[in-house]
């Protein structure tokens, strides 16, 4: 399929189901190559915690299959669909790894890239290659799984992915502290992460964002929400709930969500339903050291109105700002330059995404390596050209 395109150097837009087409820099590609016809799970060994699937397999199908064995993708891939104007639940398993999308459990379960064990892919030279494998521990050769994850289809088209899966926890609970300001909320999240109780989700939703929750009980509170998730077997969750409550009593007396409510609350965050599609605003995703999160948001707030919330104990922020010619890029990146981390523009009009750096700009030496990497995989720039960076 790729050979004639490569031969004639025809640029290709690589898509799975197309659910993330509105993310990244807009491209001029004559041909759209979709993996959506490549579907199917050909290996699933629940006792070895491993699954292999064709890249175009819908994520919903993968997760249903895992759920029937009480297993899951532990990194709970986030769904950019609702926030970027496409339908929820549309993405393919290949795109989850190609874009390295991870949700709240990333703080303990690793990112998508950490759960990727093996790939089969086609690069921009129309070469089919494999890397990694189906086993959990594998250091044979250059670690291409990590290299390809998060490259947004600009280095290779994933054909097949093999990944780690984990058991569903038997019981889950969420402790919710109400009314904390951002800095105290994130402080509480960091304090929880310093406890030995394996918190698997740590988010802070300021009041404005909490009011957007679908969960009626929480929305009705009209206050900020600082939430900690614990997952394990029943008695352990009972014990840890109490232990955390005691350790964090200075932050107030938390409400507790049971397993069902815990699923629906974190499920909302997974769909980014609190950052719904809106042409009047742009959406940024910022990663920084957790305690720096509130400072980054405060710095941006000096320049523009902001609605933001904190995941990953404060280290990941979803930041909504008013639509503007540069989507606030210069002020946001200045805040990042001071506090460290990186920012990606997730939602903006195509004209804006064409004119600002959507992905974090790199220092010259690093950019040279990235350009070299693109050249090594895709010398004719046929795969998603310019989607991540304008010049390669």
């Amino acid at each position, binding site marked *: 399929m790729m050979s004639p395109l490569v031969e004639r150097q025809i640029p290709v837009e690589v898509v799975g189901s197309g659910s993330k087409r509105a993310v990244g820099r807009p491209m001029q590609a004559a041909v759209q190559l979709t993996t959506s016809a490549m579907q199917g799970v050909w290996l699933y*060994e*629940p*006792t*070895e915690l*491993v699954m292999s699937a064709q890249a175009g397999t819908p994520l919903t199908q993968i997760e249903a299959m895992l759920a029937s064995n009480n297993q899951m993708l532990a990194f709970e891939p986030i769904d950019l669909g609702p926030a970027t104007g496409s339908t929820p639940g549309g993405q393919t398993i290949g795109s989850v790894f190609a874009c*390295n999308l991870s949700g709240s459990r*990333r703080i303990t379960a*690793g990112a998508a*890239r*950490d759960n990727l064990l093996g790939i089969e892919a086609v690069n921009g030279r129309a*070469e*089919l*290659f*494999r*890397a990694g*494998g*189906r*086993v*959990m*521990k*594998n*250091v*044979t*050769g*250059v*670690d*291409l*799984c*990590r*290299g390809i*994850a*998060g*490259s947004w289809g600009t280095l290779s088209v994933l054909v097949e992915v093999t990944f780690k899966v*984990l*058991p569903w926890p038997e019981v889950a609970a969420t402790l919710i502290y109400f009314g904390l300001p951002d800095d105290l909320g994130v402080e509480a999240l960091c304090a929880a992460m*310093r*406890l*030995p109780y*394996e918190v698997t989700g740590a988010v802070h939703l300021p009041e404005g964002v909490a009011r957007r929750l679908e969960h009626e009980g929480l929305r009705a509170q009209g206050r900020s929400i600082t939430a900690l998730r614990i997952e*394990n*077997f029943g*008695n*352990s969750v009972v*014990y840890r709930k109490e232990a955390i409550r005691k350790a964090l009593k200075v932050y107030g007396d938390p409400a507790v969500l049971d397993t069902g409510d815990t699923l629906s609350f974190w499920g909302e965050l997974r769909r980014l339903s609190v950052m719904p599609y809106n042409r009047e605003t742009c959406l940024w995703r910022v*990663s920084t*050291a*957790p305690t720096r999160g509130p400072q980054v948001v405060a710095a941006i707030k000096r320049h523009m109105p902001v609605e933001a919330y904190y995941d990953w104990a404060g*280290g*990941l922020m979803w930041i909504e700002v008013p639509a503007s010619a540069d989507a606030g890029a210069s002020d946001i990146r200045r805040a990042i330059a001071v506090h*460290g981390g990186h920012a*990606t523009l997730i939602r903006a009009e195509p004209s804006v995404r064409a004119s600002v750096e959507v*992905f974090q700009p*790199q*220092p010259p*030496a*690093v950019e040279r*390596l990235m350009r070299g*990497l693109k*050249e090594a*995989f895709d010398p004719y720039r046929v795969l998603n050209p310019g989607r991540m960076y304008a010049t390669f």
Partner: protein
Amino acid sequence: MTHIEMPVPDAAVLRRSAHIIKDLIALAGADAVIADEDGRRTFETDGLTAYRCMPLAVVLPKTTEEVARVLRYCHREGIKVVARGAGTSLCGGALPTEDAVVVGVSRMNRVLEIDYDNRFARVETGITNLAISKAVSAEGFFYAPDPSSQLACTLAGNLAMNSGGAHCLKYGVTTNNVLGLKLVLMNGEVIELGGPHLDADGYDLMGLMVGSEGQFGIVTEATVRILKSAEGARPVLMGFASSEAAGACVAGIIGAGIVPVAIEFMDKPAIEVCEAFAKAGYPLDAEALLIIEVEGSDQEISEMLARIQAIAEPYGPTQTIVSQSAEQSAKIWKGRKSAFGAIGRISDYYCMDGTIPLSRLPQVLAGISQICADHGLKVANIFHAGDGNLHPLILYDANDPESSHRAELAGADILRLCVEVGGCLTGEHGVGVEKRDLMRTQFTKTDLAVQMRIKTVFDPKWLLNPGKVFPLEETEHMRDVA
């Protein structure tokens, strides 16, 4: 085990060696350069002692800037460089060549920053693996990857090999626990990747660096994740009448939704040697033994161990010992952790490191016995059962070249078997020189070409760690470019 081919040394470089040494002293200071024969001999080999080669010189810089100066010079002069941590590699990853300068990071071993709220430590990479955990243990934190050599091996080596350990079933390997790197490219440029935040921006160059076996650059500083230790941990030890039963028991536990922090497997020969050494109460009549460790509060541990015992029941454990105290736990682990040393007391051994799908364990163990018997050798097997990482220890006589040769042949056959059943050549030790020529059993020519092009991006002249990872014939034309 000495016949593996290495690239022909660069005669022009060898001729200039006295001059090069003078230049290195000017760049890094006399106290950082080792050029005399006795001094260099310390660096002629690593943990794979069958291979030896004296380097041209050794430099032990104290700063990133010194590393950069030395690499910039070597790059300009076309001199090869072999990076080295503590030299504990089991695959010849730090083996020098005659025309190469060894750059060791062992003197760069400081802890630069610890941040408990953000849960990271920034360190120089010459620090030992265990020293990182020690530096944060007072606050109850630890650095998760725990290779058996953790007392001696450096973080630099762990980064190069993407090292694992017994507890990576739960906590992941090196690449899953690194947040940022400062490294020197072969041309002397210093770059920083990542930082105290999660996930790469742009391409995951850090993911490519980790496990690149000193082929891409020299990492001088790293920001690593530190984790809060569990309240406690306790193992249960179970003997089984067959390796099939033990393997099925592991599958049963994981299938029931329990992922312990570690599941270690030993076969009868390994049990016997380790018990003689550690007196840990290992069942000598068992064909296979599992050590399963869980973490949490006392009550959580007790409940989880009881569940595991119940799951194990149908597989007919011949003996079950639940650790009752910290002392007993330490003893149980002592046997396992000193397995290599214990076996080393009775024989020379050649440690293999394949990974296999758990379901193929009985077949692979039978295959390994057969392979070793065919070569007239004995073998003991140690296995990180949770993640499929198998360490067959082939017993041989290092003073007998013929026995050494047979051990090497048997080892290669074992690794081919691992690949055949769906596994890989190396789970945590790396390829180095040892498995270099076996790479073609796991990868096609194209697979290797894709990997080698990345090497060229980082090190266009192919000067870093020559003769490792990729089969020599495959790299010939690339090295010619240099």
